[in-house]
């Protein structure tokens, strides 16, 4: 069971998400409607993880995302799951740039309909992993110019990377792609090699995605 704080300005969704999270066996310490309240609630209640919307009052821009970044700056180990209406990779990039010890997630709001997957993603984030919405990753991978490291990946490797970015572990990945775990490991090491990632480093899945996203950042 996770002790959560939820920030979502739509009353309808706030109620729905609270119900969903409670049914998922978690405890919602506070469900708030603005970024300011979110920061205050987190400081007061020290939750296990935060679930927040991007667009929130007062400006209805990216206040939720900014609040999340602020909270992470104060406590880098705080797991944060951001829910967004936008596929826009700029938001995910902003969130992941400077990623630290705690888990991070960027999911489209549609994803909450897939209750089991959503709860699983939340669990992974709480465990310190990084989860990025498959749709966002798909957009990221769909168009790559030839000079990017990601262009060197085979279609199968991209598929594996997409699923890795979604937070799946090797076992789940193998099951999803109907291949053996050994094959997943082989693909993964090939991906890491092609992306020039040091195999000894920690959370390589995150780094793989980050490498890509920062490439996107440079382009933007």
């Amino acid at each position, binding site marked *: 069971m996770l002790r959560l704080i939820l920030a979502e300005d739509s009353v309808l969704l706030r109620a*729905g998400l609270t119900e969903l999270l409670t049914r998922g066996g978690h405890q919602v310490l506070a469900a708030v409607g603005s970024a300011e309240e979110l920061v205050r609630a987190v400081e007061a209640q020290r939750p296990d993880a935060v679930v927040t919307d991007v667009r929130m009052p007062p400006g209805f821009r990216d206040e939720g995302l900014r609040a999340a970044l602020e909270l992470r700056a104060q406590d880098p180990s705080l797991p944060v799951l951001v829910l967004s209406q936008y596929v826009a990779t700029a*938001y995910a990039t902003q969130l992941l740039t400077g990623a630290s010890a705690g888990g991070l997630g960027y999911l489209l709001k549609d994803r909450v309909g897939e209750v089991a997957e959503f709860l699983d993603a939340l669990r992974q984030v709480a465990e310190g992993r990084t989860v990025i919405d498959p749709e966002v990753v798909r957009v990221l991978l769909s168009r790559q110019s030839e000079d990017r490291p990601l262009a060197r990946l085979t279609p199968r490797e991209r598929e594996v990377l997409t699923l890795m970015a979604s937070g799946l572990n090797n076992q789940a990945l193998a099951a999803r792609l109907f291949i053996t775990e050994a094959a997943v490991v082989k693909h993964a090491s090939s991906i890491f090699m092609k992306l020039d990632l040091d195999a000894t480093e920690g959370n390589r899945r995150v780094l793989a995605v980050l490498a890509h996203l920062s490439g996107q950042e440079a382009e933007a």
Partner: protein
Amino acid sequence: MSRSAPLPEPADSEPAGPAPVTVLAAIRRPLRFLGSWWPWRCWAYLGSGFLIGYPVLVVLALLVGLGVVLALVGIGLLLLLGAVVAGVPLGALERWRLRCVEPEPVPDPHTSLAGAGPAAWLRTRLRERATWREFAYAALLGPAFGAAGFAVMTLLAFSLILVATPGIVWAIAPDHVMLIPGRPVSGPLEALGGTAVGLAGTVLAAYAGALLAGAQVKTARLLLGPRTETDRILELTRSRVRLVDAFEAERRRIERDLHDGAQQQLVALSMTLGLAELELRGIPQATGAADLVARGRGEARVALEQLRDLVRGIHPQVLTDHGLAAAVAEVALRHPVPVTVDLDVPRLAEPVEVTAYFTVTEALANAAKHSGASRVAVVGKVEGDRLTLTVTDDGRGGADPGAGAGLAGLADRVAMLKGRLVVSSPVGGPTRLRVEVPCSG
């Protein structure tokens, strides 16, 4: 202000003819001029002019003088304000009075009011140049036109008296009448010389009156009428800017309504369906129902995706939050043709970012639809105070800026920001769309 001066009906007294004749045109045929209604109309105009001009002068002098003296107390500012806006009703009166000598009416230069009530009236009028021109006219009316009109009317009065001397002499005989001091006139016949001088003076008063009236018409046209070219263009540009701003605000509103309404409802729906599906999956007999619910959830997701694309087309939130470069990168990622983006721009004024963004999306849409291009390049940078954006594709070319509403609309938007849009699309390609906009917006 007095309206007591007699005014002839201009429509009735106008000389018959195909085109209305102005007073300055009329005096080019001197004999015909003297025989027409024109001298009478000019005199009526000038006479009423100095009747109005002097009270106006006194009122203005009082308002301005007291206003300056009392400015420190605060009430003086109100008096000064009163002096300025007093030109507005006077301008209206003068435009109406002008019809006495001017066949072509002078239009009202004032724009429509931005709101109801005296405060809105004052705000609008004080911002207009027309108000200040009317104030200048009011200041000229007394000292210049009033004085000159008075001189002409005095000349006329003396001339008429001279013309009438034989009659006067005859009427008051045997008393002596002196036309020239020290030389008494003994009889009506002797006074005929005075009549001749009087007639000459009357003719002179007619011509002088016509010239003065003509000068006043020109001045009034300049100060009381609309500045045809500049004012109209300025007003047109302003109203276009207002339209685009309103249009942009409306887009925002629609986007926000969709985001806060339909999108959230659909998310909530798919969440509820998701929960229902989870419950049903726990009941072995209900697999059919669970499948149906899953299908419903899938349909809700497709609706959400479509709605998301629609909302992004209306107004991309990423443009507001992260600026042009991020928003264009986003569009490039989704484009069916490979797009390279090289945008080195900081955050810019919102109208500039929005215009630049829609220029790129329009160019990319055209490239995808019509050009058959295999590559598109978007390059942009800021040099000095100018954003330059170029979208080039390697397609077959032949794009006509005049044909598509999209490109023409873009050219309008760019022009409003005082920028320019250049489309080069020779048949056979490549098509190159270039936008230059001042960054200040």
